[in-house]
């Protein structure tokens, strides 16, 4: 029997092959997306594991070496920057021949030696030395291997020192091993929910697509199964044939999907999900995910085939005498209402409880809501059909209205993927917006993006003397492109202890004005500022400084240099500051880097949200096209007869458009409203402030729906023409 089913799957000539290929491609698309989704978390974990050595300390959680058999190593890891990218600067000085070796190195660089990652070495060769290479004086004697790099373009440098050069410097650790345990990305509960929603937003349309793609040839198959029933095939044999045939197509699609994934993986590695691309090998598919997806897609296709067979009555006389589908009643709204009520009632309790368990329960409640939408969808579609019938004055909309009223389940099936995508993506977008929108603190002023800042002291460290600061000021002012310098001085006798409520520094108004920050009436006046938020790119005025304060005689706390905004100027300033004051705890930063860092999470979420939205709409659009095409094939006869009766092809196209667009727009709007309501409620219960979704959401949503509809119409128009050509219609 199985052999016969295989024969049937491949035996239909060109038409059958085309159907099989379309189904396989649909399944393949879904499988590729599932596989890509499956490697996201392993890839993020790989990033964390690759960065583990940066967290090396005297008390490593998972030492890479046996600490009883190694000599100490002096290690200081700091973060520099170049053109908005982090440069990891690891300074090392071994205290014995058996000092632990960080990953990516074959030997530790000695004093005066430098080992650079390939990307950094390339950059150092490309740009003038005073913009980058001068920061790491020494001979490049080695290359940092991939094991120490988060991504292929990571900028990492190991600088060798003598123990005397490093000992006693701030943040230098004496370690006997290298940390190998990656630190998890700290995602908030809300963030994890956003990720879960994003995943669901992708997963559902993919599943709908796989189901729809495998149902593409259902109408033709049902006719064949009827012929087989006539000659004595039992219902069980029929089911077996249908399942085997479908699973063959889905299995081919799954294989194709795995092959496409292998091809797409190196390109997908360039995706910048957490701020850095990936090594292709880090997009590692776990065996269980491969098994789950590899077997799940064909199994799902088989189940879809069985479900589609249940919808029709395949008798020996054919499928034409199937019972008229039952009209959906208002009772279909009950699951949606019940799941909404359950969600609303349980959410406050679950949010208060916290932890993983309630998070999964929330996901469960959301799944029930989605199921509620699916159950209610046909009823809403019928409502749209009735409305169309009542208000239509033209034949196409009247026919579409009757079609939707007569078989609302089929009408909804065509748009269910898009409707789900809209619901989930709306939730994900609003949730993202709420999660990432920063709340501005009044009274703070952002530093210009073109500025370069540096802070030279830390708790208890000796301050650079006034003379060193004055020399630095003179040197920086001499750099072409520098437009101003704000010199921040520490007015107290002792360095800060770290317990101060505000880091009060003083400067002259002239410097503030030159830095483009605040206007002072008297350029010679001395004012106080709070430097605590300086590292976040923010400066806050306090008021006039104590009478008689002379900043030029005070030790320097930090500088803020205004530039013309050219990258070369900013990097030259940064290099000059580093060379003049070589041991600040925090290496100089630029205004644009601070801004980018502050918005990094927001940008990341927005990027993920937009990608999910686009992918979901793409999948759903494809489902819609397949579904509309399938529905057209199923209704080949009535359409052909309408054509024979004198209906113009343009009117037939309008029928298709009306019966697709009507319920799509209505139910999609209802889904978007429900999605927004649900996530607003989550935000309200969680105590977060509601934010409207990013403007890109509206563009992508509107454009995506229009595009999906356009694609569906574009795909089905030639098919409509062929199926209803007078030549074809003659034989109906």
């Amino acid at each position, binding site marked *: *029997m199985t*052999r*016969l089913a295989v*024969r*049937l799957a491949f*035996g*239909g*000539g060109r038409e*059958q092959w085309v159907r099989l290929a379309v189904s396989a491609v649909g399944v393949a698309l879904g499988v590729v997306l599932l596989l890509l989704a499956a490697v996201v978390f392993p890839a993020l974990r790989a990033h964390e594991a690759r960065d583990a050595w940066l967290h090396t300390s005297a008390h490593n959680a998972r030492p890479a070496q046996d600490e009883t058999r190694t000599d100490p190593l002096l290690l200081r890891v700091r973060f520099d920057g170049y053109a908005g990218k982090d440069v990891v600067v690891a300074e090392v000085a071994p205290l014995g021949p058996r000092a632990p070796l960080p990953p990516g190195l074959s030997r530790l660089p000695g004093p005066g030696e430098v080992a650079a990652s390939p990307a950094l070495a390339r950059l150092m060769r490309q740009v003038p030395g005073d913009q980058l290479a001068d920061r790491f004086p020494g001979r490049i004697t080695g290359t940092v291997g991939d094991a120490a790099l988060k991504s292929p373009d990571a900028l990492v440098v190991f600088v060798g020192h003598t123990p005397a050069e490093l000992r006693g410097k701030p943040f230098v650790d004496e370690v006997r091993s290298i940390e190998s345990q990656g630190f998890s990305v700290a995602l908030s509960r809300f963030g994890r929910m956003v990720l879960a929603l994003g995943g669901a937003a992708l997963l559902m349309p993919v599943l709908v697509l796989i189901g729809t793609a495998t149902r593409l040839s259902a109408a033709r198959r049902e*006719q*064949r199964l*009827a*012929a*087989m*029933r*006539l*000659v*004595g*095939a*039992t*219902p*069980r*044999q029929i089911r077996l044939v249908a399942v085997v045939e479908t699973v063959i197509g889905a299995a081919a699609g799954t294989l194709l999907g795995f092959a496409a994934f292998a091809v797409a993986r190196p390109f997908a590695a360039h995706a910048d999900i957490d701020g850095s691309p990936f090594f292709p090998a880090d997009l590692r598919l776990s065996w269980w995910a491969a098994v789950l997806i590899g077997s799940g897609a064909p199994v799902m296709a088989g189940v879809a085939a069985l479900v589609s067979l249940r919808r029709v009555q395949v*008798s*020996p*006389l054919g499928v034409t*005498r199937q019972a008229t589908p039952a009209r959906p009643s208002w009772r279909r709204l009950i699951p949606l209402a019940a799941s909404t009520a359950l969600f609303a009632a349980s959410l406050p309790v679950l949010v208060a409880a916290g932890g993983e368990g309630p998070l999964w329960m929330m996901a469960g409640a959301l799944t029930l809501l989605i199921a509620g939408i699916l159950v209610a969808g046909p009823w809403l579609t019928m409502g749209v059909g009735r409305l169309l019938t009542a208000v239509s004055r033209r034949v196409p909309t009247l026919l579409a209205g009757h079609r939707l009223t007569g078989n609302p389940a089929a009408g909804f099936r065509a748009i269910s993927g898009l409707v789900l995508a809209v619901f989930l993506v709306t939730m994900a977008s609003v949730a993202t917006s709420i999660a990432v929108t920063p709340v501005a603190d009044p009274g703070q002023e952002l530093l210009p993006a073109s500025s370069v800042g540096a802070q030279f002291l830390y708790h208890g460290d000796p301050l650079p003397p006034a003379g060193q600061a004055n020399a630095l000021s003179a040197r920086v002012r001499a750099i072409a492109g520098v437009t101003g310098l704000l010199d921040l001085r520490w007015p107290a006798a002792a360095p800060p202890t770290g317990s101060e409520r505000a880091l009060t520094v003083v400067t002259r108004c002239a410097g503030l004005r030159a830095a483009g920050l605040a206007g002072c009436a008297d350029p010679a006046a001395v004012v106080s500022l709070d430097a605590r938020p300086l590292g976040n790119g923010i400066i806050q005025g306090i008021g006039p400084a104590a009478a008689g304060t002379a900043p030029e005689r005070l030790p320097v706390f930090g500088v803020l240099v205004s530039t013309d905004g050219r990258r070369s100027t900013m990097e030259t300033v940064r290099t000059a500051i580093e060379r003049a004051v070589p041991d600040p705890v925090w290496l100089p930063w630029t205004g644009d880097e601070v801004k980018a860092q502050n918005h990094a999470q927001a940008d990341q979420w927005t990027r993920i949200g937009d990608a999910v939205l686009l992918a979901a709409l793409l999948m759903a659009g494809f489902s819609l096209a397949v579904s509309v095409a399938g529905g057209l094939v199923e209704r080949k006869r009535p359409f052909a007869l309408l054509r024979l009766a004198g209906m113009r092809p343009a009117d037939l196209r309008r029928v298709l458009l009306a019966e697709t667009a009507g319920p799509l727009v209505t139910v999609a709007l209802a889904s978007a409203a429900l999605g927004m309501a649900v996530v607003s409620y989550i935000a309200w219960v969680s105590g977060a402030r509601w934010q409207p979704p990013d403007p890109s959401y509206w563009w992508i949503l509107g454009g995506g729906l229009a595009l999906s509809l356009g694609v569906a119409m574009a795909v089905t128009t030639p098919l409509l023409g062929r199926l209803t050509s007078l030549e074809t219609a003659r034989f109906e």
Partner: protein
Amino acid sequence: MTMPLLRARAVAKSFGATPALRGADLDVAAGEVLAVMGPSGSGKSTLLHCLAGILRPDQGEMWYEDRRLDQLSERERSQLRRDEFGFVFQFGQLVPELPVAENVMLPLLLGGRHRREARAAAAALLDRLDLAGLERRRPGELSGGQAQRVAVARALVGRPRVIFADEPTGSLDSLSGEKVMDLLVDSAREQGATVLLVTHEARVAAYADREVVVRDGRVAALATTP
């Protein structure tokens, strides 16, 4: 008098609110070729479908030998159609994806017969029905007459005891129709099969041993087997 092979007693069948049969009675003897005639919509095809176990009547009894057809399970009726009945319908009802030879083999394959055995049986029949050389063609590549002859071959391949033919020449020209009927009736007689033939054409009915007429869902004259 021998017991009829097929019996219908007071059979009623409706489709929704539309009655098709309203108490039809019919006896069909073993080896008999019976033509069921009647105007369009009279219920003759419905009667054939009920007797073949395709449709279940709403009321009445259907007997095949000593078995109540209307009380058999779906599986049992499928098995009966596969092992003891053969069908030739107006449009052939061939499986478009399968070539001619495999269409003919289908009932045997569904019954679990070995592929080689099924192929041999099909080849013999195709040869006899003048279809040799067309084994690899698909139904879409055949003429109407050829497709109907393939349907006849498929109906005969399992050596059925009853062949149900519903307007078997309805889609053919008179010459092709005659050829199909000659082959169908001759082969059936050769195999000793009973033929229940539904037609509204007198020249097709002329192939039968006996004719009955269905009007308004009833068999106009209940004929007994000779």
